[in-house]
């Protein structure tokens, strides 16, 4: 038998994590954004639970500020899977007065997702939520456990994390608490892309180079969209771009690229000298500890 490749080993670990969660929690949920990491999570769930059904629904925390291509993709994927999708709308949190929306050109619903997510976890009584976060994404995440404990308020306390020894995960919680579980903890961005290639997974078209009307802000390219206000100096122009991460449209930037195939995208990413979050996520650029601060209050 051929030795296992590093993708085989990462896959085996992720499947083991998913089955542990399914076995030890009563009401897990898989957080699905339509981005590449959550697409890989879905494939791993198929590997872990087929020929049975998934023992959990998928949930999309939806800001309504989406790329259309991603929502179309999401609906087709869920159709093919035959699994249940819950859509938790940030708009509902706004309408219910749970959160107040920012206005102006820098307004983004990204921050508001935390409230919608925590409300949905409470409403459906979820006790575990699969996320696609990876430790290579960001320094605060580098210290996060695979089973990451959240208190009654959804908060993460990096100084009070349970030690995670061998592959023995401690999923014991009290009522009202929950655990975020990260099967892709040990994957890198490149691993995710190579896995997409190996598994021949379909991904939203915006990950490949396409012509788009964009404007430049803070060294990033933003898509033109009705709900994204521009400053007077921000003129639109057409550029060949692709997205490296897929998040809320108002805080996710595109990169100039001609890479129209998976091979070309992988080649570009292998050669890049900038991290994906640093290159394309405005939400992580606000301060040195932006991610840690958002995570502490319950963000993904």
């Amino acid at each position, binding site marked *: *038998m*051929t*030795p*296992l*490749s*590093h*993708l*085989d*080993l*990462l*896959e*085996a*670990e992720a*499947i*083991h994590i998913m*089955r*542990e969660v*399914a*076995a030890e929690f009563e009401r897990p949920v898989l957080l699905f954004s339509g981005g590449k990491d959550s697409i890989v999570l879905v494939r791993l769930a*198929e*590997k*872990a*639970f*087929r020929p*049975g059904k998934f023992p959990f629904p998928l949930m999309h925390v939806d800001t309504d500020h989406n790329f259309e291509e991603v929502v179309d993709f999401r609906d087709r994927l869920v159709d*093919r*899977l035959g699994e249940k999708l819950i859509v938790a709308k940030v708009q509902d949190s706004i309408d219910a007065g749970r959160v107040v929306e920012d206005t102006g050109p820098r307004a983004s619903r990204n921050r508001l997702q935390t409230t919608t997510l925590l409300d949905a976890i409470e409403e459906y009584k979820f006790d575990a939520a699969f996320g696609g976060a990876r*430790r*290579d994404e960001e*320094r*605060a*995440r*580098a*210290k996060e456990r695979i089973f990451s404990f959240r208190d009654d308020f959804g908060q993460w306390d*990096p*100084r009070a*994390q*349970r*030690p*995670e*020894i*061998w*592959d*023995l995960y*401690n999923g*014991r919680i*009290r009522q009202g608490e929950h655990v975020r579980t990260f099967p892709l*903890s*040990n994957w*890198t961005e490149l691993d995710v892309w*190579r896995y997409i*290639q*190996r598994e021949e997974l379909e991904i939203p078209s915006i990950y490949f180079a396409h012509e788009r009307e964009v404007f430049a802000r803070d060294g990033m390219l933003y898509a033109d969209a009705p709900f994204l206000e521009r400053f007077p100096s921000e003129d639109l122009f057409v550029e060949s771009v692709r997205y490296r991460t897929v998040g809320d449209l108002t805080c996710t930037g595109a990169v100039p690229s001609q890479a129209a195939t998976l091979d070309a995208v992988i080649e570009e990413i292998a050669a890049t*000298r*900038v*991290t994906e979050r*640093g290159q394309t996520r405005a939400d992580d650029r606000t301060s*040195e*500890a932006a991610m*840690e601060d958002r995570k502490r209050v319950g963000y993904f």
Partner: protein
Amino acid sequence: MSAPTPASTPATSGTQTHALLRLATCGSVDDGKSTLLGRLLFDSKAIHEDQLEGMLAANELLGGEGIDLALLTDGLRAEREQGITIDVAYRYFATEKRSFILADTPGHVQYTRNMVTGASTAHVALVLIDARHGVVEQTRRHLFVAKLLGVPHTVVCINKMDLVAWSQETFDRISAEVRALTAVDTIIPLSALRGDNVVERSDQIPWYDGPPLLELLEGIEVDDEPDAVGLRLPVQYVIRDGDVRHYAGRLAGGSVSAGDEVVVLPVGRRTTIETVDTFDGPLTDAHGPLSLRVTLADHLDVSRGDLIVRPGEEPAVSREVTATICWMADAPLRPGARLVLKHTTNSVRAIVDSVDDRIDVATLQHIPGSAELALNDIGTVRLRTSAPVLVDPYLSNRTTGSFILIDEATNDTVAAGMVV
């Protein structure tokens, strides 16, 4: 659902076939560990430009000059404010030959639990020694923890060689001290700050003819197939497909094929493996730490926590366990304590019958007659469990020989245990 193409092994569908090496670094506060890691990441191009900019900016704020690579690994706000490493951080880098997962563990005495955590899954322990100070208590502690946790390889880096004028005599003296303590694979002289012998060979050390650290790590052979005790398949999850029950789990030892005679423990019923499957198709002669599922020829009542083994290769089935544990809670462990023991996919209640000894990790002496274990103490305990556990000695199988203890009142993980 798409129809998966059957494959004899998952590896045949893989595009990249280099394996994964898990490293754990241990170091004291000032022996330059973070600098070494930063150097490995930086020189292997795993550090990106925006991370570099962040480090430059942060270091400027702290009044430093240039790049402090420690800022790359110390990611939490409190760590940057206090200039210390609090928690295990995981880092990833890859070369043409191999991918690496590096668990960076703080070296403070009070953080033994982090060292145990990092070492628990490691193939290689990287132990750093400051050439100016030689072997100190921390060094002995790290070497011992690596040995205790059964880390297969230990590589010792004698760092800051530039500060001892690249002295071969100093290197030889420290090496002799290390080898007198325990067996290690390799001892390397290097300077993390200057980059000598980390990725590039040093021209300052003509008397050392071994490879630089990264090249050495690329070449270390790891065996992901613990076969010492034979087939071990803990049943993790039952997948129902109509009338068919698939027993899913991650292979913890040996190999499994359709047609194999097996015993399901703890009940001890004999049966035959009917199929060995994955989403990608059936497997033949599956081995290595694979997540798979099997069906059995007979209709047995098998559930999570059961263990599938080969007849004649059964582990101990017992309600009494003697183990070396590392205690990780603030309140000391005393005989009579009631805890939850999680072992493979099985959780049972356990009572601590006795604390037989405490191990001085600096001298490796067993100190008998200890009545309790304090935070970060390592010692031997005897446990009694509410139901039989199926254990192997830890040194024969790191999966079926290990367990954690959980405090039911706080739900905290309070100990790591290794079956003697």
